[in-house]
């Protein structure tokens, strides 16, 4: 998140971001006109640039451009095999772009903690939030464990199909142990407390959130009726 005074960057409430994602989805699958599609993508890219995701926006813009080029420039004139195999994929990918753009914003600019608090404020039950946060927290640990196990396999000179077994089994066992230990550490710090959880992270809607959502709704409307 940008340091205040460093460079003015837009920051949205995570709930806005999630809602916006839904809207992006709606637009993506109801629009039919190419121009509506391109306008939406461009506007979204500008939005995330305003939030500070300049590099990612550049990469996404490039990817989108390539998709369009492939679909309108290459496939009609290229060999049929190329077209028939990939056109479905490329067309589908194009539709996913608005979602990908908003998704990138969320991944890059919102911490896991903020997302979890946002979900809690939306009255999503702890029964979902707890496993969800554990899942996300476990990804880097999983990567680490798999790395160590692969190292150990290199040292023991293990080949072929056995490699899969010898990777999967320790990973599973390590996961089970971690589940046991992490649960003990979480339960002895009251994770099962039915009281409403609080947080130091404050969630407040700002002007930019309302404007953004309004803009999204309007665009949805346009897309559904005119697109």
């Amino acid at each position: 998140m940008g340091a205040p005074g460093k460079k003015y960057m837009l920051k949205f409430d995570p709930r806005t971001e999630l809602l916006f994602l839904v809207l992006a989805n709606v637009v993506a699958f109801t629009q039919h006109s190419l121009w509506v599609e391109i306008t939406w993508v461009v506007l979204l890219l500008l939005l995330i640039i305003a939030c500070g995701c300049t590099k990612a926006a550049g990469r996404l813009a490039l990817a989108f451009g390539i998709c369009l080029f492939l679909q309108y420039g290459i496939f009609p004139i290229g060999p049929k095999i190329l077209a028939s195999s990939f056109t479905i994929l490329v067309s589908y990918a194009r539709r996913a772009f608005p979602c990908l753009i908003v998704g990138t914003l969320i991944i890059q600019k919102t911490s896991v903690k903020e997302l979890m608090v946002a979900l809690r404020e939306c009255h999503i039950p702890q029964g979902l939030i707890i496993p969800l946060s554990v899942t996300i927290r476990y990804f880097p640990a999983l990567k680490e464990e798999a790395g160590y196990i692969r190292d150990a396999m290199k040292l023991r000179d293990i080949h072929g199909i056995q490699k899969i077994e010898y990777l999967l089994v320790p990973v599973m066992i390590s996961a089970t142990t971690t589940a046991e230990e992490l649960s003990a550490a979480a339960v002895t710090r009251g994770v099962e407390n039915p009281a409403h959880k609080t947080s130091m992270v404050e969630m407040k809607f700002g002007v930019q959130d309302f404007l953004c959502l309004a803009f999204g709704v309007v665009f949805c409307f346009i897309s559904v009726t005119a697109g």
Partner: protein
Amino acid sequence: MVEIQDVSFAYEKEQGTLSHIDLKIGQGECVLLCGESGCGKTTVTKLVNGLIPHFVVGGALTGRASVNGMEVADTEMYRLAEQVGSVFQNPKSQFFNIDSDSEITFGLENAGVAPEKIKERLEATVSALEIGPLLGRNIFSMSGGEKQSLAFASVYAMNPSVFVLDEPTANLDAEAIDILRRQIMQIKKEGRTVIVAEHRLYFLMDLIDRAVFLQDGKIIRIFSGDEFRGIPEQQRIRMGLRSFTDPVMELPCARPPGTKDGLSVENLSCAFDRQTVFEGISFSANPGEVLGIVGYNGAGKTTLTRCLCGLLKEEGGTIRLDGKALNRKQRNRACSLVMQDVNHQLFSDSVWDECEMSMPEGRAEEIEKILKAFDLLEFKERHPMALSGGQKQRLAVAAAILSGKRLMVFDEPTSGLDYRHMLGVGRMIRELAGQKCIVLVVSHDREFMEKACDRIFEMDGRRDGNG
């Protein structure tokens, strides 16, 4: 006040039982639970923080335990959590969050404490435990010692009156143990009760008010602090306890590089994640000698072992075996490594198979001999993962020894081992050296190194900036 009245407990699936435990701990007391591996000290801690009976499934429990008037068996764990804070031995699996600030406030958030109060407690914790440098960081970027400090802080923030520490130093180096010691002193000063189950004793000796010595699940004797401190050396050894004093290591330095018989490391530099970990490392290790490698966390000991074993390519410098320079693949084949966490390197479905894997053309007698020496023969059909932590460690060492490689590297082979088994590993390592292997041991267990090593190589480079 913690009261345990005539408690007996037997696990459903795991090893270990408790028989007729009677213990009363007053508010503000610091009590040590000690004894050999499997004596039941960890199980006793679970009686206090409620893991028994709420968390452990099955098992037969008789007797009662209470904390500050609450019956443990009848109180919900989140209520117990308000009074009893627990720190466990594995720094890697205690944190729930990804960022450190959230981790410290985790317990307070669970309890529904008001945001202003959370902030207050956070600041109080940071100043009392002096953990400023830990704030605002990604936990995955922290060292083991920092993670353990964070776990302690996270528990402290909840302001419990009783602290339960279950082998908290098993994975820590001397510096981190020192930090833990100061944290314990702090909470003692604040009048909190401390119950510690531990193998490493030297840092606690002057802090404890009483020591409970357990064996086979029974309390053999409860010592007063002074009585415990006065136990003569011979008796301590008979009890199977680790050194009472901070072990001093007076060993000669490693040989200079260039040996024609053995391992020669010349001007080695390694990097990880595009950052230099160390450079200009040079030393020799001859067969028949055990070389210990020491250094604080971040100095690059583990990176060095990985490079020597061919898991990491060197950035600069040469590694020679018997005068011949070895590339990564060759080092891979010449080396055997016992890792810090042996759970990563046990693959078979039985102890016997695990050994056979290391030694495909091996004779059964050799495998039997080494399993016997390590107290593992009776478990030969057991699945490696069903063994206790110490047993797994010994199995990994046994498998490494059976592989018969020329260069044997051990990374923290004694973490969490009790006195007897620590000596056993030391003996085996000496025997290996006697068989003309080149043996390197990375460890922060100075008591062990004093007995097992002939020379020491000290890695003193700290990484620049944040580790």
